[in-house]
């Protein structure tokens, strides 16, 4: 599950470093992407491509592993066998997606342990929505449905990107997330069309989550030289606004049809087919992404505790003669 938080990290400084790249190799690289061919790990690639992809895939991976926590909150309390087993399978998938994505990022040269280290030390970012809590079962359902729906919009776009290992990981992830989306929708529909207590729970959870959902894809892109290059290189596949519009178009009607309301009086589709809405509070978004959200500290503390409690296991399993090499593909 992932939003476009990484797009904030598109550098805004004027230099792209491209002037230092070999023009012939750069031309071949760009021609390959223009032909629709994927880049594989041992191919020559510009520094900017390697750096930006590493950061993006790493943040995506972090978002999966941290994203397993808000739904994990309800894993011991999911009501009944059906929900319980699906909730477990879904949370498990998020961990599995993290594994796939860390592997894809590793092919670019950064080790998984370095990435995990940067995560627990607060050096790397992850999708900001996971800094919000899930105080009720209904909150968990909102994530299962709508955050995953947003993530799928993003991931389907990114799966058409240019980097082979990331595409392979995303193909698998998208296939697995089809279940998440249906499961989440099923759970929300049961609540929204259920008893008065359930409906109230679900409406309140949706009200709590809607502002965060509206920030999921990040603010409007600033069109910089970097953005243009990253789009040409098929690193960034769609603008944040385009993803948000696609999400609203697909899911707002599905939310409304089950009698739920959304806490934005300005939300509507205009005659041009474009969704209008109140501008999200980007100052608050920045504040939370920089560490001052309701759950930032807990998310990192939990991840760190998992690392520390597992350290003896990893120490014991370590083979002195074994040597790490990055995965091939």
């Amino acid at each position: 599950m992932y939003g476009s938080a990484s797009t904030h990290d598109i550098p805004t400084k004027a230099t792209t470093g491209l002037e230092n790249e070999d023009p012939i190799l750069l031309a071949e690289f760009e021609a390959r992407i223009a032909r629709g061919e994927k880049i594989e790990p041992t191919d020559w690639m510009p520094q900017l491509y390697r750096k930006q992809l590493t950061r993006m895939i790493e943040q995506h991976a972090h978002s999966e592993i941290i994203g397993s926590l808000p739904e994990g909150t309800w894993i011991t309390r999911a009501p009944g066998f059906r929900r319980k087993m699906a909730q477990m399978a879904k949370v498990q998938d998020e961990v599995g997606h993290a594994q796939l994505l860390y592997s894809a990022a590793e092919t670019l040269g950064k080790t998984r342990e370095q990435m995990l280290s940067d995560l627990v030390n607060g050096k790397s970012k992850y999708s900001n929505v996971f800094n919000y809590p899930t105080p009720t079962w209904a909150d968990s359902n909102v994530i299962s449905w709508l955050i995953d729906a947003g993530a799928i919009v993003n991931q389907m776009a990114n799966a058409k990107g240019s980097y082979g290992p990331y595409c392979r990981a995303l193909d698998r992830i998208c296939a697995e997330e089809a279940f998440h989306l249906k499961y989440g929708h099923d759970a929300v529909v049961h609540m929204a069309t259920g008893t008065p207590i359930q409906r109230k729970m679900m409406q309140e959870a949706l009200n709590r989550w809607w502002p965060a959902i509206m920030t999921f894809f990040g603010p409007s892109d600033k069109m910089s030289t970097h953005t243009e290059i990253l789009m040409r290189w098929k690193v960034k596949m769609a603008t944040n606004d385009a993803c948000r519009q696609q999400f609203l178009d697909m899911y707002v009607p599905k939310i409304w049809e089950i009698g739920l309301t959304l806490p934005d009086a300005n939300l509507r589709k205009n005659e041009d087919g474009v969704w209008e809405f109140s501008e999200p509070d980007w100052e608050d978004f920045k504040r939370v992404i920089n560490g001052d959200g309701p759950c930032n500290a807990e998310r990192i503390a939990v991840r760190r505790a998992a690392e520390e409690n597992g350290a003896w296991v990893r120490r014991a399993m370590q083979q002195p003669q074994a040597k790490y090499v990055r995965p091939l593909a």
Partner: protein
Amino acid sequence: MNPKLDLLYRLADDQLILGHRNSEWNGLGPILEEDIAFSSMAQDKLGHSLQLYMLLHELGEAEPDTVAFTRNTPQFHCCQLTELPIGEYDFSLIRHFLFDHAELLRFEALADSSYEPLALVARKVKGELKYHVLHANTWVKRLGTATEEAIERMQAALEFTLPYALGIFETTEAEPEIISSGLFIGEAELQRRWEASISKVLAQTALTLPDLRLLTPVTGGRHGQHTEHLQPLLDEMAEVFRLDPTADW
């Protein structure tokens, strides 16, 4: 109690409660890949318990969700081993090792049960349990021959857990009939096979299996007597359900 119900409740409750416990590791495991593997096995346990509750339902008991999520401590027949908190990974692994060896042998025997619906379930889940045991053995062999720290931890976990594990084989009043009707080989025979099976693996490690005859088994679970840990777990499992008992979640 009717011997079929007696047997099924014990089997189903064990798997339900241990499955719930093991699910607590989801997202908190020591290695990403291990986190995934451990979750799969917890899901399998819940799946097995569901299949067994369905057999109970066919025999006239309430719906699986009702049976699993609305009873209280005295009505549960799991052994106390399954209800203990997850603790550290050494304990969770040793519990998994001791329990799943018994479970695989149990279901291998149940594949020949005179109660055909149960034999069918047993034949189906045997393959999954085979993986559970392969997983447990691999970890016990690795950690049980690794660093001094790991061996000490695993040995301590083994010694703490064994008396509870012996409680797996606590019998009930229905035992003679369970055996005579060909439902199951019985707990004593299962325990004999289990001892041979775990000894074989432990012999390949630096771990020492204490003399089991000198240990006092922790029993009571099969008769509804449980540790203080079970009721809070049951309350947690039922928390959402209880918000609105009339609801379809």
